[in-house]
């Protein structure tokens, strides 16, 4: 009967290791100060303890699976960019890290125990500049540099050991003394569990502090790390508001990660602490935009198709804080069109019309602009828009249909 549970125990180990290090959402205890965060590993680190060697061995296979996964983005320019970035903010282990980009439209990145990181494409969409992306990557590097995976594994092993022995002794001792110890055992179980989560949050705090230190050293604007969390809180609120729900604040005793609000506040304090007065810091926005280049359209496309108009709209508005362009206007229109509530067709038409004014408007913006004009009965203008679409995309799969629409 145990084939599945045994298998899942193994995947749980891999998953658990990744989850322990993943950067998603979640009570910060006292803030950990960046100056106390000294890297615990040097260049070319290889484990020497038996338990850590075992963990690395498991990860070898995990990495082979991930490296060969068809979810990975193979774009050489983009993956090289990420590799260079982790090389810049990876501290002493910078040259040992491997980094993979997975095509998953969610805000996440994770570091595995043996020093390879996986970044989701959803993260690239949300980052406004290179400093923000460097912040997330530095946070992940921090997990490795502070040896979090093996430390949390040992912590978990120690606590479950103590609990197992304690339960057994309580049971046997209680029975010998004629007392029922069950309630205390329950309490101890909860205590063990809670202390595990607390340990995990502490490590997230460490990684944040370490990350702030690393990006400051690399010359990036330290406050950008705090801004990531401000953006995430805004996005979650917008997404929840649209669904008429309250945002899950991720603030409870069972959370593996500190609440975004706490992280935002702590990172802000970290940033003030690490900032050297008079030193010039950059955000690297131009470099970031040219690195993600044409891929930004794919990122936006995947986001708007998630059927989460609240979040999508917020994200587009946030990205547009750095200036509107044809691409962002077009996807703003797409959010309305796909939401399809009363009046959304008009909103979408306005966005498409605004998009085509910019020189970088994608071909599809002209197509949808044409369709909106057609619906509004402005056939002549529609025709011109369609013609523009066909010149931009002569081999479009729907070219025949568009020609027919043009009459």
């Amino acid at each position, binding site marked *: 009967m145990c084939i599945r549970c045994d298998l899942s125990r193994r995947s749980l180990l891999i998953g658990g290791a990744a989850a322990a290090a993943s950067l998603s959402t979640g009570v910060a205890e006292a803030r950990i100060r960046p100056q106390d965060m000294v890297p615990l590993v040097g260049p070319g680190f290889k484990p020497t303890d*038996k338990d850590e060697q075992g963990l690395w061995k498991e990860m070898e296979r995990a990495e082979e699976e991930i490296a060969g996964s068809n979810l990975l983005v193979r774009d050489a320019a983009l993956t090289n960019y990420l590799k260079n970035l982790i090389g810049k903010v990876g501290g002493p282990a910078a040259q040992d890290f491997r980094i993979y980009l997975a095509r998953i439209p969610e805000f996440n990145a994770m570091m595995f125990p043996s020093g390879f990181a996986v970044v989701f494409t959803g993260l690239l969409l949300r980052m406004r500049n290179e400093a923000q992306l460097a912040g997330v990557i530095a946070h992940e590097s921090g997990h490795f540099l502070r040896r979090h995976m093996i430390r949390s594994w040992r912590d978990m092993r120690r606590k479950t050991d103590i609990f197992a022995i304690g339960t057994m002794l309580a049971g046997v001792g209680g029975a010998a003394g004629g007392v029922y110890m069950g309630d205390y055992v329950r309490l101890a179980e909860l205590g063990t569990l809670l202390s595990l989560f607390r340990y995990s949050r502490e490590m997230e705090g460490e990684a944040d502090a370490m990350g702030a230190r690393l990006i400051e050293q690399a010359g990036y604007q330290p406050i950008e790390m705090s801004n990531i969390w401000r953006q995430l809180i805004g996005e979650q609120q917008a997404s929840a508001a649209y669904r008429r729900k309250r945002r899950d604040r991720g603030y409870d005793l069972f959370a593996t990660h500190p609440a975004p609000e706490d992280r935002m506040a702590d990172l802000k304090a970290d940033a003030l602490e690490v900032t050297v007065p008079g030193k010039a810091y950059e955000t690297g926005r131009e470099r970031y935009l040219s690195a993600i280049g044409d891929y930004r359209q794919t990122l936006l496309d995947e986001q708007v198709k998630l059927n989460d108009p609240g979040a999508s709209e917020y994200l587009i508005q946030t990205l547009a804080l750095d200036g509107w362009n044809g691409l962002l206007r077009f996807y703003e229109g797409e959010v309305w069109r796909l939401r399809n509530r009363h009046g959304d067709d008009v909103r979408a038409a306005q966005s498409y019309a605004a998009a085509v004014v910019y020189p970088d408007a994608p071909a599809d913006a002209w197509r949808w602009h044409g369709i909106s004009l057609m619906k509004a009965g402005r056939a002549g203008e529609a025709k011109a828009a369609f013609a523009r679409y066909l010149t931009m995309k002569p081999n479009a799969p729907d070219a025949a249909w568009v020609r027919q629409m043009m009459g």
Partner: protein
Amino acid sequence: MSACVQTRQFADVQFTPPQGDYKLLVLRPDVTVGSLTTGGMVEPRADWTDQARSNIVAALRAQQASRGGRVQFIERRTELPGVTADEIADVERLNYAVAESIVIHKYLGDYLPTKRGKGLDWTLGEDAVRLGQKSGYDYALFMHAEDQVASTGRIVLGVIGLAGCFVGFCAPNVGGATQLDYASLVDLKTGEVVWFNVVQAGSQVPGIKFGDLRTPQGAEQMVERLLGRMKPGAAVRRAQEAR
């Protein structure tokens, strides 16, 4: 109560165990050996895993040679000439999904009415046939073995649990070492999964052993349990009995 070994195999109705001159491809036996901590977690051990893996490979080679087969082990996906790493990865992943489905519908009780009386009716399809054509092998064997060795702390815990029985708090089934192995044999000419076997061994009392993969004897015993008693499929058996 102390230790039990369970094994249950399924075969394609038309299956005859390979005999004589056949070429078998073993896609890297997937082996993990870990230590079962006092608290019940499994701590993977790299040295034990390597030891167990080489023992299993040696035992498997010896066993297949006695049947007349030629065996080739693939440690890395890049090792097979003429076949790309991606193609092997695809077959491996497909096999993983199919094996999971076999386990659900054959072992865990979600029996499928459409597959009743059909023996083992699963296939890896064209991908496996292509692998056979490109590599020239007759069969592919996928093997998974995981072994958990009870740590001293776990054994002590079991002893306290048993001792407790004398004072009225009886916890004899703490759970000790467990081993789980499974193997699936795929006919690379048809792509069909022709034979599947699961061996599960476990001792409820930590400290009782039943074949440790870290020793050559233990690995031999495991390979024998898993692959030694390969039975022909139902149709073949009936035909044999009729004769």
